[in-house]
């Protein structure tokens, strides 16, 4: 028989305004096992905790129920309180009467009734609780960074700086990501490559960092401190160790039809190529779709000219498996597909381009060597119209409901740079709102308008159509309340950004949650913004939400700090709420092992004495160091032999029963 104390928190007025806390404490006073009940204004405060400690000692409590906020908020707090008073921390149950009750109800009567039920449910569980003790598991002192853009690079550099080993897994042939494609960066207008490539080189030269380019994460097992990750190293048909990056193969390759992804497919590249001049690793890769040798077996020119003997047409995908203590997800973004936006005629008109395409056209290493020429005829455009919010803040279902955050600033940058370099060019910008919070951001935007004379038009564009070789942009000017028609030579769409689609697979592999827009969810929007709800998984960059370079870099460094904080520990406390099989009931059918995401279940042949007979049986055995207590096995087990400590079927059923009594 338990001796249970019930502690109902007012949470100031957060709970007490909607729930009659005294009535709750009173109602459960005589419930099974309850020997003490009390309320307090702030149970989490020093005084509140003291009240709990005193009651545990005075009333020899064996278990406590705290009716308060979500266990995510203060379960750890109250467990520590209990422990300080000599009570096992797993004898504490939280009844969430704030998020699950007072915050979502208006009617005091109804909310009070519900709070009583929730508290009784927790009491029912504590009645069946048993003390549990945590074990320890070692920490693998190596981190994995998924994605080699600026977020991944920064996180890796910071982690390596602290002395830990880091692997960067990048799916493309080079690290650098989107930032490598950008020409100039706002608000300082310094060259993107000039500030990024030294960091890329640092990564390559850092002994602690291993860059696994052209690779993808295939499988993730394990848990915080102890992940085991299978990485696919895609066949690049070039020996990474031998290739010197001389580019002779690129010159000789007769297949020149591949579209240059780095230049947003604005020009062609050979079948064997190095994505860009400063690529890291500076190693060629063969596009198997374009390579004549791989497709027909004839050619082999690159192999002949390669002085280093690096070309290997027989290379196959390879898989490596490595252990990590922590994982940083930094998978980045891509501009959305614009096929659904017929009104802007992106698919029909070569001279309707996206901002990232313009970025490449403006870049000295781009398809036009940095000269602003329009794609259709290579002429200098004289009138350029920018359209903002293409697919951003779009609730029509066609685009994205969120603000992509970076477009206002880069559009101002583009407009300004064009006016600076080509003062005879007329630049118009259609916008819904201009949003420029950030250090020196609004000043930057105002410079574009005031100093560079960019024509900002508040209003949306209804249609872009081609008339006699001119792009007619029809929109509305809301301030002058009139329709405008602008005859343009080039139209630039500020396309919304979305998480790189591969993030879905990564999220599933990591059991990290993802929101409706495919952004990874942080553990707490304000207080744990770089941690994923999955322990040991951290988020950096746009995979978590739209952000610009400075924000991405800060978040990456914050991730690194969290990772370092984890990796300096030698051991982590394990969760004692693990599964175990009742040997006499186990069929040995292996269904639990097939659903276990952690590979924690194996089988043993064991002699059992049942009903006076000895039988050799195949029985499930759970490794408690590997089990994470997810409970998948307990619901799969047909005979109910598998059960979870701290969340036994009996405990859960007793809670359900308590709720169903009403």
């Amino acid at each position: 028989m338990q001796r249970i104390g019930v502690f109902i928190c007012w949470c100031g007025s957060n709970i007490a305004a909607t729930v009659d806390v005294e009535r709750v404490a009173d109602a459960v006073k005589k419930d099974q096992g309850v020997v003490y009940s009390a309320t307090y204004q702030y149970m989490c405060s020093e005084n509140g905790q003291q009240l709990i400690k005193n009651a545990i000692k005075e009333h020899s409590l064996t278990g406590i129920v705290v009716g308060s906020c979500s266990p995510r908020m203060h379960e750890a707090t109250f467990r520590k309180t209990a422990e300080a008073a000599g009570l096992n921390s797993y004898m504490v149950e939280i009844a969430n009467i704030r998020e699950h009750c007072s915050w979502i109800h208006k009617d005091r009567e109804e909310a009070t009734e519900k709070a009583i039920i929730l508290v009784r449910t927790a009491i029912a569980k504590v009645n069946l609780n048993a003390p549990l003790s945590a074990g320890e598991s070692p920490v693998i002192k190596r981190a994995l960074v998924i994605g080699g853009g600026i977020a991944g690079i920064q996180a890796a550099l910071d982690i390596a700086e602290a002395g830990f080993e880091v692997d960067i897994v990048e799916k493309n042939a080079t690290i650098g990501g989107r930032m490598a494609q950008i020409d100039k960066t706002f608000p300082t207008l310094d060259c993107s490559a000039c500030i990024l490539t030294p960091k890329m080189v640092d990564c390559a030269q850092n002994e602690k960092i291993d860059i696994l380019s052209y690779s993808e994460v295939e499988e993730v097992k394990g848990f915080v401190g102890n992940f085991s990750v299978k990485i696919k190293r895609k066949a690049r048909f070039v020996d990474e160790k031998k290739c010197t990056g001389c580019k002779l193969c690129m010159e000789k390759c007769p297949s020149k039809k591949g579209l240059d992804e780095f230049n947003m497919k604005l020009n062609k590249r050979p079948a064997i190529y190095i994505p860009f001049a400063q690529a890291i690793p500076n190693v060629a890769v063969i596009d198997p779709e374009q390579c004549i040798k791989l497709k027909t077996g004839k050619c082999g020119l690159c192999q002949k000219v390669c002085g280093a003997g690096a070309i290997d047409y027989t290379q196959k995908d390879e898989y490596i498996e490595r252990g990590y203590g922590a994982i940083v997800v930094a998978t980045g973004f891509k501009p959305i597909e614009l096929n659904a936006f017929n009104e802007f005629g992106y698919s029909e008109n070569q001279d309707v381009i996206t901002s990232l395409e313009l970025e490449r056209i403006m870049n000295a290493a781009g398809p036009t060597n940095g000269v602003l020429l329009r794609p259709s005829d290579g002429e200098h455009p004289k009138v350029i119209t920018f359209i903002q919010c293409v697919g951003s803040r779009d609730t029509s279902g066609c685009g994205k409901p969120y603000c992509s955050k970076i477009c206002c600033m880069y559009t101002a940058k583009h407009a300004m740079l064009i006016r600076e370099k080509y003062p005879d060019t007329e630049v118009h910008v259609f916008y819904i709102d201009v949003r420029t919070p950030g250090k020196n951001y609004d000043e930057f935007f105002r410079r574009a308008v005031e100093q560079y004379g960019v024509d900002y038009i508040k209003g949306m564009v209804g249609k872009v159509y081609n008339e006699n070789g001119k792009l007619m942009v029809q929109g509305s000017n809301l301030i002058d309340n009139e329709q405008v028609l602008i005859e343009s030579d080039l139209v630039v769409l500020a396309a919304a950004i979305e998480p790189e689609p591969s993030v879905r697979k990564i999220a599933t592999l990591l059991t990290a949650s993802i929101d409706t827009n495919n952004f990874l969810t942080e553990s707490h929007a304000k207080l744990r913004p770089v941690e994923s709800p999955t322990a040991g998984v951290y988020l950096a960059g746009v995979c978590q939400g739209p952000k610009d370079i400075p924000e991405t870099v800060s978040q990456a460094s914050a991730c690194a700090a969290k990772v370092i904080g984890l990796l300096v520990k030698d051991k982590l406390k394990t969760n004692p709420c693990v599964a175990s099989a009742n040997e006499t009931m186990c069929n040995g059918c292996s269904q639990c092992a097939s659903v276990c995401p952690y590979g924690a279940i194996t089988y043993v042949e064991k002699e059992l004495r049942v009903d006076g007979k000895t039988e050799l049986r195949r029985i499930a055995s759970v490794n408690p160091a590997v089990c994470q207590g997810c409970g998948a096995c307990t619901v799969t087990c047909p005979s109910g032999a598998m059960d979870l400590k701290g969340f036994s079927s009996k405990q859960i059923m007793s809670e359900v029963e308590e709720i169903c009594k009403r």
Partner: protein
Amino acid sequence: MKEVESKMLERAKVLLESGEVARVIGWRKGAFCHDPEPASFESVDELKDFVYDYFCGANLSKYLIAESKKEGKTAVFLKPCDTYSFNQLVKEHRINREKIHVIAVECMAKLDIGKIKAKGLSAVTGVEVDGEQVKVQTLYGEAVLSKTEIVLAKCATCNKTHQVKDEEIVLHERPVRDVNRFAEVEALEQMTAEERFKFWREQLSKCIRCNACRNVCPACSCIKCVFDNPQSGVAAKANDDKFEEQLFHIIRAYHVAGRCTDCGECSRVCPQGIPLHLLNRKFIKDIDETYGEFQAGESAEGKTPLTEYRESDLEPKDVLKEGK
């Protein structure tokens, strides 16, 4: 069928006499011509009661859980549908495959005495099957029935083939037929939720909880069934409401989902004539539609849709969207 029977008997004798196997699992004559029962034959002598005819519908695979634990090898006669259950049990490590010698035997569909009686015939003393025609002898004379109308429900939609054989006794090939085993399930799906609830409520209210369906089911092979285990909290849970007790069948359907081979034994043995196989078939159909076609027991290895995660798996929200 007589021919097949004598070949089987011949093999059983040889296997037992040579000591190659310690026992043979087959069917033994019952009190009437239409109720042969599964039996274990341990000597040539015992084989005098051996029978294999149109009433040997019982699935023998489940008996092998116990038999494969015994000393020596066990030979078993398996019809096509039985081999799926056999595979499934091997996969779940319930049968020790090495200790079993499987003799695949031809089936040609088995008869349902209930359906024969429903035709107004009683005191049946024997049947003679000639293609589609079945001559039924009774104490009161003879009648000719159409075979299609009197086969077991599980045979009416069967297109199964032998999945396991160490040797086979197949003298006639059963023609492959074009049957849709989901037709009845589809009819249930067409009903409104209320109609369907009424249908099942009426059907399940006939249940007397004799546990025959569970005891015969090869997928229900738990060492300790949750319904027999006072510790499980399930056994005595459902006595508040009559229909709640009948949830037994729905719980059972969930427990065997993804493992049920559609052997149809549950409906065959139900003394109340509840079409229990339809519950399981609905699960099979849903699994097929949600995760791609899957036949439990086709192999004794590999993963199953409900216990395996694949990247192509539908998200819960999509299932809800498409859910019927």
